[in-house]
C-alpha cells in the first residue's frame, strides 16, 4: 500500500508506491511501529478498542518486515418516510458495545450523520465488529410544511433501530467484516404526535435553569423543548410521538455546580400538567480511613494557586482517595470528590448528587488498595448506590490498606514453549481491575487481597474479557485463588484452548 504513514521511535515517513519503508539505526529489541492511513485500521477484534500499530522484535538479522492493514467497513442506505418519500435530515448513528465504567455500555462508534435530500446516508471509518444502527427522525417534521400543525401534529418515531423496531433488544446486529460495504434501509411511518406542556419546578436557589430535553438511552437529545420560560419553568413540547422517554433536567446551582437528573415519562396523549423537578442534589459525606502498616513512601505534591504562586507539600494534605459516582442511566452524569489540598483530607464530600442509580468507584491516590467501600450496610464494591429523590444516603466509608499479598501463577502447558494469555480477574466486584499478560507465568509481589479467577487462554482472539458473560462461559476451566493480606498465594492453571 502506498502513502501509508509509518512511525517508529519518534520518526515518521510515508511508504513508497509499493508500500516500502525503511528506518535506519533502529535499536535492537522490541519496538512499536505505528501505521496510519485514512480508511484503514490495524486488524483487531473489538469494534471500538484497537491499537495503532504492531510490536515487532528487531535484531541484527531482521529481514524485511511485512505489516498489514485492514480496510474500513462502510454502511450506506436510505431512509424513506410516509408514502415512500425520501426523508431528509434524519440522524443516523452506528453504535457498539464498549466496556466502560463497570458496565457494558452502548456508545456511538462514529459521529451521527444526517440523511441528504434523497434520504441517503453513508457512514465509513468502521472497524470490523458488531454494530447496531439507529435512526432518529422525530424532529424531521419540523421542516415539513404543515406537519406540526397545532390542529393535528404528526411526527416520525423518535428512535428506530435496524431493521425497524423501537426496542434495542429486538434489533438486528450488523456483523461487519473488514472492507465490507453494507446497505441498510429504513422505512418510517408518520404517527400521531402529542403536545406536552407542564412546569419545571425548582426547589432551592439556581443560577441557571436549562430547558428540559427528551433524550434517548444514551442521553443524547431527541426533542428539545419548543418553548421554555426559565422564570416560571413553563415548557412545551409541540409534537412528540407516543412512547416511553427519559427527560434530562438540569441546571447550575448557586455554587456553580452542574446538576443533572434523568426523569422518566410515558406519552400516549396530549398532556398539560407535566411536572419535573430540579432539586439541589444531595451532599454525601465521604470518610476515608487509611490503615497503612508499612512505612510511607516519601512524596512531593505541588499545586498552582490562582495568584500564580506554587505551593509544595509532602502530600499529606491531599485526599488519599478519589471517589466517583457514575450514573447507570447516563454516561454523561457523574460526580466525584475534589482532589486538592484540604484541611481534613480524610473528610471529603460529594456535592449536589442528583437522584438516581450509581456505581461507586474508589481510587487510591497515594498508594494502598481499596479494601472496602460502604454506605451503611451497602457494600458498594459489589452493589449499586441508589440516591433517592427525598431522603438521604448514609455517608460513604472507604478503607484503604497496604497489606498486599504476593501472587504467583504458573501455567500448565500441553506443549513446551507454549505461551498463554493469562488473566487474573477479581471475582464479584463492579469495577474489576484485570491483570493480564502473555507468557508461561505471572508473579506479583504486591497484589490486592481478594478472591480471583485465573484464566490462561491460548488466544484472546474474539474474547472480550471485560464481558462477564464471556468469562462465565469459561469459568469451569479457570483456577481459583485467594490472596490473603500479607499472604503468599500460588496457583497452577491449565491452558484453555478456545478453538476446542
Amino acid at each position, binding site marked *: 500500500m502506498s502513502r501509508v*504513514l509509518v512511525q517508529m521511535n519518534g520518526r515518521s515517513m510515508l511508504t513508497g508506491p509499493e508500500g516500502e519503508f525503511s528506518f535506519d539505526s533502529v535499536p535492537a529489541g522490541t519496538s512499536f511501529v505505528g501505521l496510519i492511513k485514512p480508511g484503514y485500521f490495524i486488524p483487531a477484534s473489538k469494534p471500538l478498542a484497537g491499537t495503532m500499530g504492531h510490536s515487532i522484535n528487531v535484531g541484527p538479522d531482521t529481514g524485511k518486515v511485512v505489516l498489514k492493514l485492514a480496510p474500513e467497513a462502510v454502511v450506506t442506505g436510505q431512509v424513506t418516510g410516509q408514502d415512500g418519500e425520501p426523508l431528509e435530515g434524519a440522524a443516523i448513528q452506528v453504535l457498539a458495545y464498549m466496556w466502560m465504567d463497570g458496565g457494558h455500555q452502548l456508545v456511538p462508534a462514529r459521529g451521527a450523520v444526517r440523511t441528504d435530500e434523497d434520504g441517503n446516508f453513508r457512514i465509513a471509518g468502521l472497524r470490523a465488529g458488531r454494530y447496531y444502527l439507529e435512526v432518529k427522525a422525530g424532529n424531521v417534521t419540523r421542516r415539513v410544511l404543515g406537519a406540526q400543525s397545532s390542529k393535528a401534529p404528526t411526527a416520525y418515531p423518535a428512535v428506530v433501530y435496524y431493521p425497524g423496531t423501537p426496542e434495542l433488544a429486538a434489533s438486528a446486529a450488523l456483523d461487519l467484516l473488514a472492507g465490507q460495504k453494507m446497505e441498510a434501509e429504513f422505512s418510517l411511518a408518520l404517527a400521531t404526535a402529542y403536545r406536552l406542556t407542564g412546569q419545571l419546578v425548582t426547589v432551592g436557589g439556581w443560577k441557571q435553569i436549562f430547558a428540559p430535553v427528551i433524550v434517548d438511552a444514551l442521553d443524547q437529545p431527541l426533542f428539545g423543548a419548543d418553548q421554555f420560560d426559565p422564570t416560571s419553568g413553563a415548557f412545551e413540547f409541540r409534537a412528540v410521538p407516543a412512547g416511553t422517554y427519559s427527560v434530562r433536567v438540569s441546571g447550575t446551582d448557586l455554587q456553580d455546580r452542574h446538576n443533572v437528573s434523568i426523569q422518566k415519562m410515558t406519552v400516549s396523549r396530549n398532556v398539560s400538567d407535566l411536572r419535573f423537578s430540579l432539586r439541589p442534589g444531595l451532599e454525601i459525606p465521604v470518610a476515608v480511613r487509611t490503615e497503612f502498616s508499612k512505612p510511607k513512601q516519601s512524596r512531593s505534591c505541588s499545586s498552582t494557586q490562582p495568584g500564580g504562586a506554587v505551593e509544595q507539600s509532602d502530600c499529606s494534605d491531599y485526599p488519599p482517595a478519589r471517589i466517583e459516582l457514575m450514573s447507570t442511566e447516563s454516561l454523561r452524569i457523574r460526580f466525584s470528590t475534589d482532589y486538592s489540598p484540604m484541611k481534613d483530607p480524610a473528610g471529603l464530600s460529594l456535592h449536589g448528587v442528583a437522584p438516581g442509580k450509581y456505581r461507586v468507584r474508589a481510587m487510591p491516590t497515594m498508594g494502598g488498595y481499596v479494601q472496602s467501600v460502604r454506605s451503611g450496610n451497602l457494600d458498594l464494591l459489589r452493589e449499586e448506590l441508589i440516591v433517592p429523590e427525598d431522603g438521604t444516603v448514609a455517608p460513604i466509608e472507604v478503607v484503604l490498606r497496604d497489606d498486599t499479598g504476593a501472587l504467583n501463577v504458573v501455567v500448565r502447558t500441553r506443549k513446551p514453549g507454549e505461551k498463554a494469555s493469562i488473566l487474573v480477574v477479581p471475582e464479584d466486584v463492579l469495577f474489576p481491575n484485570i491483570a493480564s499478560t502473555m507468557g508461561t507465568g505471572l508473579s506479583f509481589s504486591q497484589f490486592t487481597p481478594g478472591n480471583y479467577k485465573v484464566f490462561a487462554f491460548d488466544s484472546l482472539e474474539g474474547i472480550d474479557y471485560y464481558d462477564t458473560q464471556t468469562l462465565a462461559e469459561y469459568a469451569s476451566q479457570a483456577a481459583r485463588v485467594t490472596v490473603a493480606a500479607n499472604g503468599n498465594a500460588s496457583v497452577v492453571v491449565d491452558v484453555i484452548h478456545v478453538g476446542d
Partner: protein
Amino acid sequence: MLERPVLCSALLVVATLSALAQPNRPAVSSRADFQISGTLVDSNTGQPIARARVAIAPVTERDNFSTMFTQEDGRFAFPRLMPGKYTLSAQARGYLLQSFNQHDQFSSSIVVGPDLDSANLLFRLPPEGAISGVVADEAGEPVRDAQVMLYSTGLSGGSEATRRRAATMTNDEGAYHFGHLAPGRYLVAVSARPWYAQHSILHASGGTASGDAPVNPQLDVAYPVTFFPGVTEAEAAAPLVVGRGEKLSADLNLQPVAALHIRVPRDPDAERPTRIALEKRVLDGPPIQIGEQISNHENDREIVGLPPGHYTMRTFPLSRDGGNDSTLAREIDVGNNGEINNAKASSYVPLSAKVEFNAGTSLGQVSLQLLNKRTREVLSERVGNGGELAFKQGVLPGSYEVSLASSSGFYLRSLSATGATVTGRTIDIRPGNTVTLAIGATIGEGQITGTALRLDKPVAGAMIVLVPADPAHNQVLYRRDQSDSDGTFTLPAVVPGRYTVLAIGSGWDLEWTKPSVLSSYMTAGVVVEVQANGKYDVKVPVQ
C-alpha cells in the same frame, strides 16, 4: 441594516363589481363559504408541480395548518373557509419552500371573503439548486473531514455583500454537498489538514537540541485555505452561478505548502495559564481555527501546522471559571517561521457602554447593536441590569452605527463616547484606545401606515422603503414592507425623526441600501416627520 420580521401583505384580486353597487350585501359574512385554490407551477418552465405539499393557515394562527397534496395537474384547493387573511405556502422536492409571491422575507397572504377572488391563483415555485464536489489532495486521494464553506456573493437584502451561508465536512470519499440553494452567485472555500502532517517543536528554547528526532520536512506541511477552482487568494475565487434549479459540480485539489512555526514565549507576568488559538476569517465570515498549539517544557508555546496568511491570534485563559474573562486578540500576518511576543498587545479595542433609560421599569430584552459599515456584520451585546454592558472580546477598529434592539420599543436618542469620534450615531474607532459609550434611550417608537397608489388605484406587491434623513449615516433606521393588494402597508418600530416614504413597483432587485441608488426616487416620495409614539397614514405614489 436590521430587517424586521416577515410582514405579510394581502393579495386582493379586485372584483369587477365594487362594494358600492350592492348596498344590500352585508358588510361581513361569517359563513364558511369561501375557498383558496389555484395551480402550483415551476417558475422556470411553467409546468405544474405534482406531489407538492400546499398549506394554508390563518395569519392570526400561523401554526394551525391545513395541508393538501397536488396531483399531476398541480392544482390545489382549500374549500369551506371563513373570511379572513391566510398565509399560503408550498413545499416540493427539488423546489425551495416558499410563501406566495415571496420576495426576500416578505410575501403576500390571501384575503378571502365576499366578492374577493381567491381562486385560480397561479403559485410559482422556483426550483432549488445545489453545489457538490470532491476535495482531493496532491496525490489525487480524497480528503476526508475537510471543512467546506459556502458563501453567497452579490446583491442580497439590498446590499452587495459576501456572506457565509453554510458549512459542511467532506465524507470518506472527499465528497461534500450543499442543497436547497436559491439562484445566485456562490463561492466555495475549503480548510483542511493533511492527514499525514507531523509537526513538532522547531524552536528549542536555549538553543540546545531537544530530545525529539528532527521533523521530516516532507510531513511538516499544511494546506492553505483554498477556493474553487483551486486558488489560495480570495480575489481569484471563481463564482459558481446557480441558475434556477441547476446542480453544479465543484471539485477542488489541495496542494501542501511548508507549514510555519510561530513561537509564543511564556509571559512571566501572566496571572494564569492561557491557551492560544489562531483563527482565520475566510471572506470576512465567521472565523475558523487553523493550526495547533504545542507546549514545550518551559511552557513556551508554539503554533504549528500554519500555512502563511493573515490571522487573529486569540489568548484564552485556561482557568475553570474563566468564562467571564475577556480574551486578548490581535491581528498578525504570518509569512515565515518566527516569534511573537504576545503580552498585552491586542488589535481589538475594549468597548463598554452605559445606557440610561428615561422611562419604564420593565425593560424587556434590550441589546446594543454595532453595525460594522465595511463588513456589514452586526455585533450585539445584551444590556445588563444596571444599563451596563461590555463587548468582552473587544471590537476591531472601524466605523460603526450604534442602535438599540428592544422588544418594548426603546430606541437610541443620544450618544456620546470617549476614545472614539461620534458623528450622529456613527462611531469611529481607532486602534489602541479604550472606548466607553454613554447612551440615552427613550421609549416611543412610531408607526407609519399607508397606501401605495398609481393614478389613484392601489398597487399590490410594491416595495415600500422608509428612507431616513442622512441615510448614509443611519442605515439602521431604514424600514421596508411589501404592499397589500389593496395597496396598504405597515412600517413598524420607526425611530422618531424625519423620513421619506418611497413606493417602487419593481424595487426588489435594487441595491436600495446605497443612498445614490434611491436618490432619483426621492423627489416623488412622501416626507413624514415622526414624533415619539406618533402614528401616521400616508398615500404614496408608486414609481
